[in-house]
């Protein structure tokens, strides 16, 4: 489908999230994210990659207002999510958006049974009928590949992969339209990762979910996402269709990142040429400021006007 015809379910503009730490003289500001702009189409999977500490989790948390963004705008289905928090806005956010957390062990309350954990979102939404709650929980357990019998057990009785399934069930039981999955497989053994990735893919098909998939493993993100955003030090530097990004990376950081991903192929690995990204050398932003620019249709790069011109020239044969 051509991008123009698709509905933008999430629109993020110049989002910034700064944390202040320390007091008095020691006070300093961490610009965890700074000038992040992108949009997500309905029913697509949008991957967010970047190195540890570049601001992926912060972005996810700011989107669903677990943090109060310093500046910028986030619109879900046209409605602005930044600004003063009201009961109505909180309700709007929780009923439309959900988050699967990075650590499957820390994020489940050890004193609650699986039934209590999974049904929590429904109870908050005012569903009290025990029979209905049971039915919905069992249906969810079945969906994520667990059984009814698991409902009365506690988190510590499950393996990492099973706990991650419980986390997924808890998030999707309220049928959110957008799910932010923060490194849902990073903590799992390789053999279990594939189970969880396949499950997310099935749920996406079945429920028409829109997913923001955060990870640092580029191969997994590429496999799972329709489009990908690349972050570097609090900024989003490139957004494109996943095939396009991988075949024609434009921003020098994306090129460096792709050149560093080890591939399970001894023939190509031995010939690998790794590119190095040094921001000071790669860009001269003393005269022109960079901003997110659509360099090719659907392919956005954080660049200055003269860089944009140079990129277009470099890929001239593609126009």
């Amino acid at each position, binding site marked *: 489908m051509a991008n123009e015809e698709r509905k933008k379910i999430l629109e993020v503009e110049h989002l910034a999230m700064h944390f202040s730490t320390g007091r008095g003289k020691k006070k300093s500001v961490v610009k965890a994210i700074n000038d992040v702009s992108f949009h997500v189409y309905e029913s697509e999977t949008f991957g967010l990659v970047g190195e*540890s500490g570049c601001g992926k989790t912060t972005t996810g948390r700011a989107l669903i207002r677990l943090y109060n963004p310093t500046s910028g705008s986030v619109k879900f289905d046209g409605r602005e999510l930044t600004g003063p928090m009201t009961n109505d806005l909180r309700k709007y956010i929780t009923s439309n958006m959900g988050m699967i957390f990075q650590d499957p062990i820390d994020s489940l309350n050890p004193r609650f049974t699986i039934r209590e954990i999974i049904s929590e979102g429904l109870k908050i939404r005012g569903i009290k009928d025990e029979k209905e709650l049971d039915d919905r929980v069992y249906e969810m357990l079945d969906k994520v590949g667990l059984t009814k019998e698991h409902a009365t057990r506690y988190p510590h009785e499950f393996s990492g992969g099973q706990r991650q399934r419980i986390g997924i069930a808890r998030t999707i039981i309220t049928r959110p339209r957008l799910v932010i999955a923060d490194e849902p497989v990073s903590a799992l053994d*390789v053999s279990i990762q*594939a*189970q969880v990735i396949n499950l997310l893919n099935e749920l996406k098909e079945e429920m028409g979910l829109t997913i923001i998939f955060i990870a640092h493993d580029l*191969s997994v993100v590429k496999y799972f996402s329709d489009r990908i955003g690349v972050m570097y030090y609090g900024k989003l530097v490139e957004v494109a269709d996943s095939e396009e990004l991988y075949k024609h990376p434009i921003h020098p950081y994306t090129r460096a990142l792709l050149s560093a991903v*080890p*591939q399970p192929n001894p023939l*190509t690995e031995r010939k*690998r040429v790794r590119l190095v*990204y040094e921001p000071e050398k790669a860009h001269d932003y003393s005269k022109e400021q960079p901003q997110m620019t659509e360099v090719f249709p659907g392919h956005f790069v954080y660049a200055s006007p003269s860089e944009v011109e140079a990129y277009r020239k470099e890929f001239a044969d593609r126009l």
Partner: protein
Amino acid sequence: MAEKNDIILEVKDLHVSFKSYAGYVRAVRGVNFTLHKGETIAIVGESGSGKSVSVKTIMGILSKNAVIDSGEVLYDGMDLTKVDEKVFHTLRGKRIGLIFQDPLSALNPIMKIGKQITEVLILEQKMNKEDAKKKAIELMRAVGIPQPEVRFDQYPFQFSGGMRQRIVIAIALASDPEILICDEPTTALDVTVQSRILELINKIKEERNLSVIFITHDLGVVANMADRVYVMYAGKVVEFGESEEIFFEPAHPYTWALLSSMPDLETKDEKLMAIPGTPPNMVYPPKGDAFAARNQYAMQIDFEEEPPFFKISDTHYAATWLLHPDAPETPMPEQLSQRIKRMKEEG
């Protein structure tokens, strides 16, 4: 390829167990491998398959509840399963370098980073203080620590996890070891930093004819580093061979599953081949081929009798009944053979 006579380390029929309240955990159940001078072997396999326990045995750093049931670790005319701690003191961190998963425990929290490196250089390389400092800063730069002159005088807590891991690597390299054992040394690092460190290890290997044992679950890293690969499952080696043999002609169903379970950058719409079920309980290791219960190609005999190693080439062996002359012809999964074809074309 390495000659028979330049074997530097040999592990023979190693069995290691742990006494635990759940019972006697049979962590390593008959592991064999050889390491030649100047080669890198990779050990891959599922979490809990006994990779770390195997290399901890080599270094004499098993926990107190561990029991070496039987087996030998031959190095420089000694059997390391029988030598005492005094001998290990002359080997560990000196002739055999170590880089572990958890960098926190490897550094002294109250000693400046620079001193932790120069100490090794002064003691082991008999350098004077000045040269040691120069060399240490050079090593810090080589592992990608920005502003090493400033960082030299800082303490571990002032470093991020990834930076601490790079210091551990710098220390291991400072002593100029004969063998370097790396247990998931780059798992916590970003790919750009990781590839830099792998390049560094490869360079030192070339320059000094270093032998490396590399444990990782990242098959991309294996492809990058390894001359030969050992695949472990449930406390045993199930397949080993040269890197190309393991990646392009895998023979054990567990190796098939491992190779197909993760996407590479070329994987598109196909469903990933997940390995069903969970790893076996090692207090009661299953009879026969331990992978049988999760193996869609399992035959009756897999549940009854343990498969011996079948020879595929002079360098490539796999322990699976599928290689028995009487076994039905079983090709690897179509999805995997497609992927291998594609990889060969790219190469």
